[in-house]
């Protein structure tokens, strides 16, 4: 079987922050490739650089040195607006704290990436409804986030991530604010998404969560410590 195309290709990137007089090396010479259809967990203790790497992968930030090519495009030198376009089109974010707009209904939250993509109103609504139905929230799409449970909020966030049909889904501690039963439901949802063909990248510090992925990349002190396939999925 021919190998799937490389979506994420990071070569020797580093990230240096200047904090006062001190220079902090959040990432030192990290290289990583992720192919379409993979299910990868990025693991590491706090301070390991995994958040920095996630920001980099999500095109929220650019490396100090090295190259990052996303689906064949060099994003390490792109400006803010080009990065915004890539995030809008190719990356679906799922955050630990959900990051929904509190005053907008679930439907409006899910529509938002399509607004920025320039999709017309009626198609926007249709696609947002479809995405919400796919995560099992067809009944609650007119509720505001504060009228939904944590698990439901995270489902809205997932629907928002999926609605643009992105190349990758990037989930940062997606179960961190959920009880374990709801967390399991969310992980099942990610598993289903992966099985239906999506590329999923999980950022987590919990072994239990990371075990759902098929490949685990461990970071320590800004370096890749190990990069192994995971066969013992739950």
């Amino acid at each position, binding site marked *: 079987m021919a190998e799937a195309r490389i979506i994420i290709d990071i070569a020797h990137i580093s990230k240096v922050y200047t904090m006062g007089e001190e220079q902090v090396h959040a990432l030192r010479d990290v290289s990583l490739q992720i192919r379409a259809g993979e299910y990868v967990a990025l693991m590491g203790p706090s301070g390991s650089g995994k958040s920095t790497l996630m*920001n980099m992968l*999500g095109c*929220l*930030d650019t490396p100090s040195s090295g190259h990052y090519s996303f689906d064949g495009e060099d994003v390490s030198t792109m400006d*803010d*607006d080009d990065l*915004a*376009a890539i*995030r*809008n*089109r190719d990356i679906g*974010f799922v*955050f630990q704290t959900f*990051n*929904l*707009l509190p*005053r907008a209904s679930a439907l409006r939250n899910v529509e*938002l*990436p399509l*607004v*920025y*993509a*320039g*999709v*017309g*109103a009626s198609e*926007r609504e249709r696609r947002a409804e479809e995405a919400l139905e796919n995560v099992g929230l067809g009944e609650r799409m007119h509720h505001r986030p504060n009228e939904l449970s944590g698990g439901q909020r995270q489902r809205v966030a997932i629907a*928002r991530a999926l609605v*643009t049909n992105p190349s990758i889904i990037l989930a940062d501690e997606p179960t961190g604010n959920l009880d374990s039963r709801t967390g399991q439901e969310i992980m099942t949802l990610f598993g289903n998404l992966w099985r239906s063909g999506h590329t999923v990248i999980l950022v987590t510090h919990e072994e239990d969560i990371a075990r759902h992925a098929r490949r685990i990349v461990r970071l320590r002190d800004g370096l890749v410590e190990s990069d192994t396939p995971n066969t013992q999925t739950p």
Partner: protein
Amino acid sequence: MISAGELSESIRIAVSSLRSNLLRAVLTTGGVVVGVVLVVLMGWTINGLDAIWEKTISIIGKDMIYVDKWDWAGGRNWRKLETRKDITMDQATLLSSSLESAEIAVPLVRQWGASFVRENLSIRGAVMGTVSAYGATPAATTEEGRFFTPIEDAEGSNVVVVGYAIARTFFPSGGALGQTIKINGRPFRVIGVVEKRGFLFMDFIDQQVFIPLEAFRSSLGLTNVSFSVAIKAGNERMLDVVRDEAIGLMRNIRTVQPGADDDFSINEMKAFDAQAANIRTGIWIVGMGLTILAFLVGSIGIMNIMFVSVTERTKEIGIRKAIGAKRATILVQFLVESALLCLVGAIIAFPFSQAIVASARWLAVDVFDFEAATAVSPFIPIDLLIVAIVVSVIVGLLAGLAPAWRASRLNPVEALRFE
């Protein structure tokens, strides 16, 4: 730059943000409200003065030219005018009869401070001696009776056409026609009452009477008086032609040497235009100064609250950027919000302005009996409202620029981390 969907999203966000902070928004717009009220009041005042001016100017008639010894507008060297020779009756009559381009041209002589007596009532006013043709000018149109006739001109009959105020004083219940009043002790029969003309500083017009020139000569004498020639050009377009002809003829009649200055003045209603323009400019400068000040204060308030809004919504900006909002999108979102804030200010200001305008007019007309104010509209004109809206939106956009710029430049990673 941004799509229609993004713009309508921006408007939706701005409205919802405003509604969730309604009290704060309303308080913030205070400066803008004052600014808009001032713009509207200034515009209304200038419009009102224009209306009063228009009405005033129509009393004498826009197409009227007066050839006089004196200059109405002043400003020239008074002593120099004093050395001019009086315009004699012959000169005035000659000019009147020679002028070809004008519709009407008549000699005119005036005595100020004449006494008018009717039974035990006595008042003072001006007596004008002129000829029958003057009756066709706006200043001498009668509402009752008639102006004198060419026969009365020729005979120098002791007939009088009285001004509105004089008729009202002597004959409060009407019936002036056929009655007799004494002018400087001589009896004159009232044959006509001039329409009410007095208005603003033209009030003296209602306090004068017209008698035939010959009667003026025989009863009041012509010593120490200077004649005028009243010319009705016919229409405003003819003014230049008529003026040129009158100047040429008069220089000839008074044998002014070529190259020497005219030894007479050409007076037109236009002479007052400069004064009216000065008043207008004065109001405009003061109004503009206050307006700019109010908008400046207002825009600082708006800018301040927009900075607060940007800070409060840092997280939201981060989320929007993460899911694909470009810089321009965020910029427009906050500009729309700031403009909307000012628009709210303008809308709050309108009822205030209307109330002020309506009560100002009510005070002037009904309380202080300032008759000129009736020419002024009690409503704010639509075009002023549109100007006020446009100005406030522009102020909003300018005031929102710095906060919106800051919002658009936020780093998404840091913005997302903000709690």
